[in-house]
């Protein structure tokens, strides 16, 4: 169950940081598809991971940026610290603005994370069946019960599966991504090339031992998973053979150039800078500024990064040139490339974003150089923390001061955050 994965991430965090459990003031988790039994998965996982039962926990949801929301809920606007993907901590300093718990002075130490268990999503009985079953509970006599049962028809047994589709438009995300790619004239070849790049870079990072945010997870009854297991560099020829997955038969989004759904959990330790220093920690990074944006869920579903990037830069008083590492959520290769084109278009900035000019496209040599969701996988609710911690690790490894994290999310929403390397 999802709380097991979340528990593992929390325990990993405890192990790596050796933070005393009772210091943690609050726990926030993000998740998208909720297991009904553990709807507040943060609390169940925290209890199971051995945190104090005096530490409150709540769960947030905001589609693919749920754990980003968990982090910003914990930290508030402005500076904060940092943490871990499949666990690792970090710190931060107090931030005056915003409503987050640390910023508001509510807490000093917060654990934020996210979890998604895509391999066992809740599948429901049909509404008719549910209604019958609930009525059955209230039926008193055997006669009433039998008469209810006799009304059950074969179609009552058709289950309801959760779909990766927008509620408002009924369009699946892949379909929308294909239309987005077409709108920006992104070709199939460009998408395949980008996906290949993501897999190759992830493989390289993994081989070089850079993906150190991963903690091993023992799958009950099976082997221990020690590394990301979806990295599969292929060839353009192989990828070119795949049929379109959504817009058939002429679409461009395929299984190979989309992020894959996977199980995963992440956790991150966030503190005010004073608290971290007082406790003898050396923070990894500051979480500086962040923004949330939203736009048309039909035609601009996945353009969140385009809208969020200039906004967060403005808020932080930075320009694109000040950013040393970019860590963007790769939902689809076509989505990333469309965003890059949109960010590089004055026409789009003027006509759709109400800006005078474009923000510019991030240079690729600073962009997702350790792979991304296309190659590492995308456990919805957990991805945000991975983006942030990867940005921090890349800053440290590659040198640089500022990192920019951006992601799109269902509902036509988006998020961006500035991460600053803690002075070494």
């Amino acid at each position, binding site marked *: 169950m999802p709380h097991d994965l979340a528990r593992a991430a929390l325990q990993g965090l405890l192990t790596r940081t050796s933070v005393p459990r009772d210091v943690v003031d609050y726990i926030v988790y993000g998740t998208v598809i909720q297991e009904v039994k553990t709807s507040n998965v943060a609390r169940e996982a925290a209890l199971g991971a051995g945190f104090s039962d005096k530490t409150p926990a709540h769960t947030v949801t905001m589609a693919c940026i749920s754990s980003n929301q968990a982090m910003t809920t914990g930290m508030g606007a402005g500076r904060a610290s940092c943490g871990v993907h499949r666990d690792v901590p970090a710190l931060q300093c107090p931030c005056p603005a915003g409503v987050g718990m640390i910023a508001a002075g509510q807490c000093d130490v917060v654990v934020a994370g996210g979890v998604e268990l895509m391999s066992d999503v809740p599948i429901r009985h049909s509404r008719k069946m549910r209604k019958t079953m609930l009525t059955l509970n209230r039926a008193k006599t055997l006669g009433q019960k039998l008469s209810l049962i006799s009304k059950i028809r074969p179609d009552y047994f058709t289950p309801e599966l959760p779909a990766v589709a927008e*509620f*408002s*438009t*009924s369009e699946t995300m892949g*379909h929308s991504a294909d*239309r*987005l790619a*077409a*709108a*920006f*004239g992104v070709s199939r070849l460009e998408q395949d090339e980008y996906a290949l790049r993501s897999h190759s870079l992830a493989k390289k990072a993994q081989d070089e031992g850079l993906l150190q945010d991963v903690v091993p997870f023992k799958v009950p009854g099976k082997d221990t998973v020690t590394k990301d297991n979806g990295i599969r560099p292929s060839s353009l020829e192989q990828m070119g053979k795949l049929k379109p997955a959504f*817009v058939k*038969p*002429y679409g461009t989004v395929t299984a190979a150039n989309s992020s894959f759904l996977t199980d995963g959990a992440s956790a991150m330790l966030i503190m005010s800078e004073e608290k971290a220093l007082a406790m003898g920690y050396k923070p990894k990074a500051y979480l500086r500024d962040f923004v949330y944006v939203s736009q*048309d869920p*039909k*035609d*601009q579903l996945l353009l969140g990064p385009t809208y969020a990037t200039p906004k967060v830069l403005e808020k932080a008083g930075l320009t694109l040139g000040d950013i040393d590492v970019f860590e963007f959520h790769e939902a689809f290769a076509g989505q990333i490339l*469309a965003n890059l*084109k*949109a960010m590089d*278009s004055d*026409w*789009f900035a003027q*006509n*759709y974003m109400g800006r005078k000019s474009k923000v510019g496209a991030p240079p690729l040599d600073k962009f997702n150089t350790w792979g991304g969701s296309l190659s590492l996988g995308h456990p919805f609710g957990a991805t945000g923390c991975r983006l942030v911690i990867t940005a921090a690790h890349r800053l440290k490894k590659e040198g640089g001061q500022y990192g920019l994290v951006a992601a799109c999310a269902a509902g036509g929403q988006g998020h961006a955050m500035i991460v600053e390397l803690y002075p070494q």
Partner: protein
Amino acid sequence: MCPWQERGAGRENSCNTCDFSSLGYACRNISTSSALQNRTHVSCDIKGDVAVVRFNTPNSKVNTLSKQLSAEFTDVMNEIWANEAVRSAVLISSKPGSFIAGADLNMLEACKTAQEVTQLSQDGQKMLEKIENSPKPVVAAISGSCLGGGLEVGLPAAFDMMLTGRNIRADRAKKMGLVDQLVEPLGPGLKTPEARTIEYLEEVAINFARGLANKTVSAKRSRGLMQRLTDYAMALPFVRQQVYKTVESKVQKQTKGLYPAPLKIIEVVKTGLDQGNDAGYLIEAQSFGQLAVTKESKALMGLYHGQVHCKKNKFGNPQKEVKTLAVLGAGLMGAGIAQVSVDKGIKTILKDTAQKGLDRGQQQVYKGLNSKVKKKSLTSFERDSILSNLMGQLDYKGFEKADMVIEAVFEDINVKHKVLKEVEAVIPAHCVFASNTSALPISQIAAASKRPEKVIGMHYFSPVDKMQLLEIITTDKTSQDTAASAVAVGLKQGKVVIVVKDGPGFYTTRCLGPMLSEVVRVLQEGIDPKKVDAISTAFGFPVGAATLIDEVGVDVATHVAEDLGKAFGQRFGGGSIDLFKLMVQKGFLGRKAGKGFYVYQEGVKNRSVNSGMDEILQKFRVPPLSHSCSDEDIQMRLVTRFVNEAAMCLQEGILSNPLEGDIGAVFGLGFPPCLGGPFRFADSYGARQLVDKLRKYEAVYGSQFTPCQLLLDHANSPSKKFHQ
């Protein structure tokens, strides 16, 4: 043989289809010889080995199959076939939202004889046949409306489409096999959504065309089991005969034989199936020619022009767009008005005086929208977001922001005055006050207003979400801007708008009055309601005359008849109004009360005559006058009174032109569309003949049949026509 045959799928907006196909009617202009002359309607780009043919009728929102376009198209296609380097072709429009809207009506109207039209049709067929048999694949990339008749063989679904001319959404068209691929519209990219979508459509189509030429793409449609079974069954003459019979009887029932085209279509399909394509094409062209010059065709084309005319705001743009609308009274009309407003994005306050009435009204709006969800023309999410524009309330909160108030309260001048005063106390200065009354003169209502220039009549028809007409009534004091604002709202609500002068019953109610009075008279003569209905629908009225009274409501009819009777005297006489009064007394108010001339029961389709009426009808029985009681006489008694009153409205300046008179009668009152409206009918039937009839009945029944001066003038000079 080419398996791709599509002759025009009618469509609603916003979807694009990619189709291997041919078009509606193309025609060749024989005099065009040079292929290199400047083309203005059709252009051709060669992209690699694919020719892209673009339609673009200059200075028009839509492309139509005019002689010019057809000639250029023929030239272009001949060049493509002659060009070795070209292996396939794509047909596309340069106009977003319109592929080809159909044959150019002006071209058809310019044809004097059936032979001319037949010639046009045959030229078109030849061209289409050539495309159908083209050695090079032709892909039609359709974005927007694509209309036009055609011979679609075999599919029962296609039968349906040909006969009713209904619009088909792109996804349905794909299911029906009319089109092969759908291209979803794109959102913004590096260009506007419209521009990029059409560019993308072209890219996809080019790839398909190339694929077809290279045989990497197959256009063979896999036929489902059902389709194969249907095809097999249709190949049996016996089954075919049965299908023809069923379709024919259905058509007969629906059209009463008043519309010649559907029957011709069946004949054409029959010939094509039984005797082969050549015979089918020949009879198709001949029938089309014959149909084009029928008076029904002229009447319907007249209505089309009228509709176009009534979709324009002759008062120009109002100073202030109506963004917030308030509707008073959540009854059938009020809720209907609210429904057609919220779904156009107008914030609408629906106010009633009682919670129960308000609940009913809100439920009506929900139900109306939800039925669209059930038909899949709206998603449940869109329904919810539309409903968020509706605010139901019992007080005047928020009226200070209203740009327009439409009252749909009880038809009583005192009630109207009361709400007018209440409303004027809370609305801003620019706010228009519109009354949805069907008969009370607007100037009388405006008499209670502090600002009569802002008062106007907006007469909707029930059910508001179905009836296309809106009759706007201006008084001498109504300002131009108020009128502009009302027309703008009506057009936004999707209405066909006529603007008339104030007077008792305005135009529509006033025309209906004498006719209904005559209906009562006929009933008094002992003709039973079912017979009256049959006689009137046989003439082309969509709803029988007795049923119409039940629908309108006997109480409302009584009110109107009394008011108008006072205003116009004997001309509205004929039937006895006391019959209505007695019905009201007995509670026989019509459909809404469950009883009127008929008994209405939920779920019962074949309603029976209300036996309680026997006594009432008996009481008012008058002896029939034997020499004017044939079915035809009864029809003419009803219609001549209608037409006479319509002409009177034109004569008195209530109507500004006959065109709006025809539109109002057809779209608001169900005047037989095949006759084109009272004025078109007067022209085609002959004013002289009409006056003769009126004189005949006048002699028998009295002055309610006295023809008006305008009709007499027309009768006296045969060259005078309402429509030139």
